[in-house]
């Protein structure tokens, strides 16, 4: 699979179809993957594709404005590109989408950091309920779809963790999140890794006015985490990168999924399904049942 990818990449660079390819290479530890940016045929040898390729590379698209970018994507990553296209953040003609059929990726947090060898793969939570393995659209498809039998536990409810939280009383729920957010160190890795957090000036950095405390305290941490999630309402495509990037293990996907579920129920809307779809919260419809919008 990696070979096929390398050959395609070389071809694209030789024929000047793209200026660079955003893909994956083996990390320095020899086990994990790391993002890479390939602009020469020789460098294309570095490209890999396997279950360690966890990153959603769409967050790097903004780093290369006005360049023709080849980008290696999984099903979930492509959905974030769909939203970026919908929101006019990238130009389709600058993108060459190299879709890789996805065997499911690892749950990095389950790797034992003390272990120096490759370990048995534990799949990421998002992969366990993922229904497709081949992206909806692409320019180039790498490899035949092959479903990993360790995955797709058919019938598994993707909202199970959310339902568990919903079953708690308000007090219990608040206590739960208070305790989870108390570990937040405000490193903003959740924001920086998110392909859809692209505001030039984030609300967390504004000082006139300052919206919430920069301090690591309940008010600041709660405000930040809730604002982040709310700003992704109707946009988050559940790539799970925020939760993966969080160094202190805050279950950010649970908040994202809760909002996703509400939006599905209220508006029959799912983010990232098609470019033609109108962004849910940035347009309005005269037939909206709420009065305030008319």
């Amino acid at each position: 699979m990696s070979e096929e990818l390398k050959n395609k990449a070389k071809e694209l660079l030789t024929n000047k179809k793209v200026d660079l390819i955003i893909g994956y290479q083996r990390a320095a530890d020899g086990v994990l993957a790391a993002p890479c940016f390939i602009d020469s045929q020789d460098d294309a040898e570095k490209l890999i594709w396997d279950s360690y390729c966890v990153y959603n590379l769409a967050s790097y698209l903004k780093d290369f404005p006005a360049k023709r970018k080849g980008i290696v994507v999984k099903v979930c990553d492509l959905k974030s590109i769909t939203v970026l296209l919908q929101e006019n953040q990238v130009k389709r003609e600058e993108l060459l989408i190299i879709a890789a059929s996805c065997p499911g990726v690892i749950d990095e947090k389950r790797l034992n950091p003390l272990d120096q060898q490759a370990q048995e793969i534990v799949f990421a939570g998002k992969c366990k309920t993922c229904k497709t393995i081949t992206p909806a659209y692409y320019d180039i498809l790498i490899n035949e779809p092959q479903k990993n039998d360790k995955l797709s536990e058919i019938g598994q409810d993707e909202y199970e963790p959310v339902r568990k939280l919903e079953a708690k009383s308000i007090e219990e729920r608040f206590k739960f999140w208070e305790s989870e957010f108390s570990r937040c160190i405000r490193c903003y890795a959740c924001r920086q890794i998110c392909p859809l957090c692209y505001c030039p000036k984030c609300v967390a950095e504004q000082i006139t006015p300052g919206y919430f405390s920069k301090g690591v305290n309940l008010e600041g941490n709660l405000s930040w985490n809730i604002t982040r999630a709310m700003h992704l309402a109707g946009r988050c495509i559940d790539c799970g990168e925020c939760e993966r990037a969080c160094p202190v293990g805050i279950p950010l996907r649970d908040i994202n999924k809760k909002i996703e579920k509400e939006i599905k129920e209220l508006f029959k809307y799912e983010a990232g399904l098609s470019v033609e779809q109108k962004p849910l919260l940035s347009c309005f419809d005269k037939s909206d049942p709420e009065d305030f919008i008319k």
Partner: protein
Amino acid sequence: MLRIAQKEELQKMIDGFLADYEVIGPRELPGKGIFYQPITNAQDLYLGERFAIEPVKKFFFRPSEYLFEGGLKEGSEFLEGIPLAQNKRMIIGVRPCEARGLALLDKIFNTEYKDEAYVSLREKTILVGLSCQAPGKDCFCTSIGGSPVQARGMDALIFSAGSKYVIEIITDKGKDIFDTCPKEPDKEEIKAWESLKEKSNAALRKKIKIPESLDNIFESGYWGKVSSACISCGVCTYLCPTCHCFDLVDEERKKLRCYDGCAFSDFTLEASGGNPRPTKMERYRQRVFHKFDYFKKNFGEHLCVGCGRCIRHCPVKMNIAEIVDQAPV
């Protein structure tokens, strides 16, 4: 000076410390990792081989703290310092790299201009270390002047030796607290301890070379290349035992000091809109130079302890050890 204690004896001693000290140590939060937290019982402590995600730095140079308050009193402005914490603390289970990190932070905060909040917390805290016997794959302390058994910056250092613990007492403070442990190791036990130390050192396999100076490659295209994957978050700086950059913010008429980091795009952004470090290339280069060049020029050693946290927790696997090792000097 050495002492030896059975596991139960050590636990009893720790329970004894709880009467006089606020005791902080590594605790395991299931599914989340190891976190330093106050304990109420010696059983709470996790004294295994995994490392805490956040270093003990946060108990001295705090992620955020109020330094003073100001406002209007009887119609005119006032400014008043906020009283410093007075309680005696003990942190148990500190790793050699983290304690060494504090020794480096002292060079910043405990100088001619004393940072009182930091200095008073340092003075009021006893540090009891725990040696590393199974260093992680990202650890590289021996390449940068440290070791898994080094006692620098600690009052005492504990080694886990089977069912027993060997306690190396470093300072008078350390001597005072382990006064209740009268038993000294015998010749055999000392021999075993020494071979344990050798084994620990040998278990640390990652070795890197650090260039004498980076002067000649400030302008190199290398920095643009190696920084391209950086997402400009604060993981590496906030989790680093030696990163000490901070921001001062006015909130609710109080002065808040909180962590800040060179990776953030607004770290050096000026009110005029100018920014001397406009892209992640300049920012990442600053991080590497500060740690592996500037600090040595100013203070005689590198601002890194090789703990590997920035590598282990980087969301995109940036690896500063490899980047420094392969720098094209």
